[in-house]
């Protein structure tokens, strides 16, 4: 079994990011899952006070008042209504929630929305041109039937664009390795590789 590639989470590696939140939780339980600690969050109202966050998503500005615990993924889906980005595990293990932050692929379930203040976020809804012309990667996914149920697809496409721009789509083996953080349970993998191969040239220029 291959390990999923280490995607960056706003500059931190996933491993460091996870380790960081766990140790931080010992003193300041930010995550709901750490609420078993001695003092429940219910007695610490300050942590729940909403924070005004400015996000730029698909070149549009949003000003949101968010619970500090809200992930970028939930902000997109529940607060902005951009449901194209999918929740598959909420633990950074499946890749379905992949978006681009300042051009780099990020697992939006592992990134608090407030951490993205002022950053440029691109989601699957932001790829096609205003005239409806698809991004070359989207078209390639159609051409090669690179999905079945389609649920992991937005994450696959965002990850594929990130993969190409990182320079990790130079060979089929590279694509397989660097796309392995995005699980496709329908298992369209060979078709996903074919799609990335088709679109990589145009994506580099896009």
């Amino acid at each position: 079994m291959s390990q999923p590639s280490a995607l960056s989470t706003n500059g931190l590696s996933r491993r460091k990011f996870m380790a960081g939140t766990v140790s931080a939780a010992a003193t300041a339980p930010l995550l709901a899952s750490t609420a078993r600690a001695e003092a429940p969050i219910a007695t610490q109202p300050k942590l729940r006070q909403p924070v005004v966050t400015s996000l730029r998503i698909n070149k549009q500005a949003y000003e949101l008042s968010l619970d500090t615990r809200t992930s970028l993924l939930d902000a997109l889906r529940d607060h902005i209504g951009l449901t194209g980005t999918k929740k598959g595990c909420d633990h950074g293990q499946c890749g379905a929630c992949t978006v681009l932050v300042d051009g780099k692929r990020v697992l939006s379930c592992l990134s608090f929305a407030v951490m993205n203040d002022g950053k440029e976020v691109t989601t699957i809804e932001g790829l096609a041109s205003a005239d409806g012309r698809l991004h070359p990667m989207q078209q390639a996914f159609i051409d090669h039937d690179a999905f079945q149920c389609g649920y992991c697809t937005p994450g696959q496409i965002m990850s594929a664009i990130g993969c190409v721009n990182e320079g990790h789509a130079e060979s089929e083996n590279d694509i397989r390795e660097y796309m392995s953080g995005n699980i496709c349970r329908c298992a369209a993998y060979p078709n996903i590789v074919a799609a990335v191969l088709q679109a990589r040239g145009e994506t580099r220029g896009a």
Partner: protein
Amino acid sequence: MDVAAPRPKENQGEPLPRVDARLKVTGQAHYPADLPTANLAHGALATSSIARGKVAKLRLDDARAVPGLLDIVTYGDMDKVDKPKFGNSSATSIGPLHDRTIFHDGQIIALAVAETFEAAEEAARLIRAEYEEDKPTASFDSPGTKTVAAAGKSPMFKEDVKAGDFDAAFAAAAVKIDQRYSTPTQHHNPIELFSTTAYWQGDQLVVHEPSQNVTGWKVELARQLKMDPANVRIVSPFIGGAFGSKGPMTPRTAIVAVAAKRLGRPVRCVTSRMQAFGTQTYRAETRHRIRIGARKDGRITAFAHEGWEVTSRPDLYVVGGTSATGRMYGYGSVLTHVSLVQADRNTPGYMRSPPETPYVYALENAMDEMAVALGMDPVEFRRINEPKTEPIGKKPFSSRSLIQCYDQAAAAFGWAKRDPKVGAMRDGDWLVGMGCATAIYPTAVAPCAARVRLTVDGDVRLQCGSHEIGTGIRTVAGQMASERLGVAIDKISVEMGDSSLPPAPVSGGSISTASVCSAVLKACDAIRTKLYAAATAEGGPLAGSHNEEFDLADGKIVAKSGASAKVEDVLKAMQVGAIEEYAEFAPKGATPEALKKLYAGTPEFHGGDQDEDSVKYAFGAEFVEVRINRYTREIRVPRIVGAFAAGRIMNTRTARSQLMGGMIWGIGQALHEATEVDRRYARYVNRDLQDYLVPVNADIKDLQVILVPEVDHAVNPAGVKGLGELGNVGTAAAVASAVYHATGKRIRDLPIRVEQLLV
């Protein structure tokens, strides 16, 4: 032509791109939890941390203190609602909030509802339970299991098939094996999380939930809530992978519906990945004993298959794959027996090729062992035992192209280059092994309804309450209408995934394409008949033509004589703007109640081993190459070839994709997938996608699917055999066969892992 869109051969349809492809690559395909809902409240489940006992006390104070908490639904709150009834539409008979008994780890003990997802999660985690705990029984070999025979005990299991005198034949056999095999617990883990969104509009309940069975759920949910089914609507326009997991409804649905009613506003509950392991169904672990006896020339004279499956305490779920394994080859005699082993576990449910995945794995691994014992090529061994009729009821196969599949797959794979000697093939530090196995899946079909409307503008609207789980059913249903009505696919809109549409059967058992396409065919043919009658009527554009053969193409009726008329003109002559037909398809052999049962959400299945005239199965052959590192024993599958014959192929693109996905599932079954059960606590350990291993992109390299042409008019009017579940049958045995060829080690317990090859 692109490899994803194979050129159609005889009886195979065009590889049209999926009609919903654009929605899926732009994020506009709305899965149930994506559907916009105003004034939404969020729910989060609290689940039990013991597997057996009682909830003595629930402490809710901390949870209630969470700002934004709206409600907690728990014991007592479901008393006016009926418990689930175990069956095809309901995963279990356990009503988790109906009484305080805990039947399994991870059982729902409460639902916290709050203004935000974060607050709901926080509150759910602050719900504290005090238990009266009993020592649970985890699985096979745990103290306290109860073993019962499936036959006669479970209504889901027909019989232990048998033929001839196995004992005598086995005793007399010149060559024989007697071996045991096992398969692990597995969870479907579709990437879409399980979710329920419920809201009320007066007396009407609307539920958005990923479902493979909207009609069955509507009826069962209405029964639980003591409502008229007409007032319940299940909406599931896109489903993010199912594989059986979204076939039966779980108790969560009614709980969320009750929460929405109490609050008077919409409630959404998205189950966490971890909670899904205990609140949804799964593939239970199985054990098998197989005995095969043969003559020295390779003819099998005796076959016995005994299977054991784990199930829950309250529900006798069974897969019982002996019906297929007992009919696979021309055995002289057959003896089978299926037993259920009850433990303190959640109720299992169907998962992609439910009976065949474990049972055919055991049979095919045993067949490979038998070929070795006979000193015979494994393909030749199967060829020798190819039957003329199936051995149980001596019925013919409606079609059986297994040998063609073996021949084509073997040629594409390069089987002839295999050195049969164990361990003989090497590439540097890699031991190379090659193996093969048979795939089989019963071809069933069920009643189905569809509504088709053809308008004067040449648009077609097709409605059917089936489900797009990724199979491409919208596309192939549209293709059938396109072909029969002579309308381009982009003029056809296909609506599915809503219980307010004409009812379709559960999207399981690989029946959907056959059932839905047969209904669409019937509706389209009724439209064709009306059009032709109007066209040839007095004063009609084709007046004078009688009972001629005709076709519809490019918006025209074209008679065999060459005369043609525009469909638009025929409709104008009829003075109508559209023709709409509602068709109810019932398969051959359907009972008089068949259609009533379709509307009641309990459709009858026909085909497979059920019919009088013949047995109906799809077949395939899979070949794999494994490479095992001589030092680390790392196992890779760099190459896999599968050839499959499944009657008419509606669309070679979607068919290939489904079979490919199945083959990769098979590789996962062979090497990756297993839910580990902590035997002390009867608890699943690896409850996430980091530790529950599934194949990822880097695990798959060279994969080839061959669609072997086959014509079978006996299976159903569409001539279609299902293939969604065929691809992952047999794969694990092919891998085991290749591992043996590479190493000389026969692995009988799945998954095959490095540690088994180190000793």
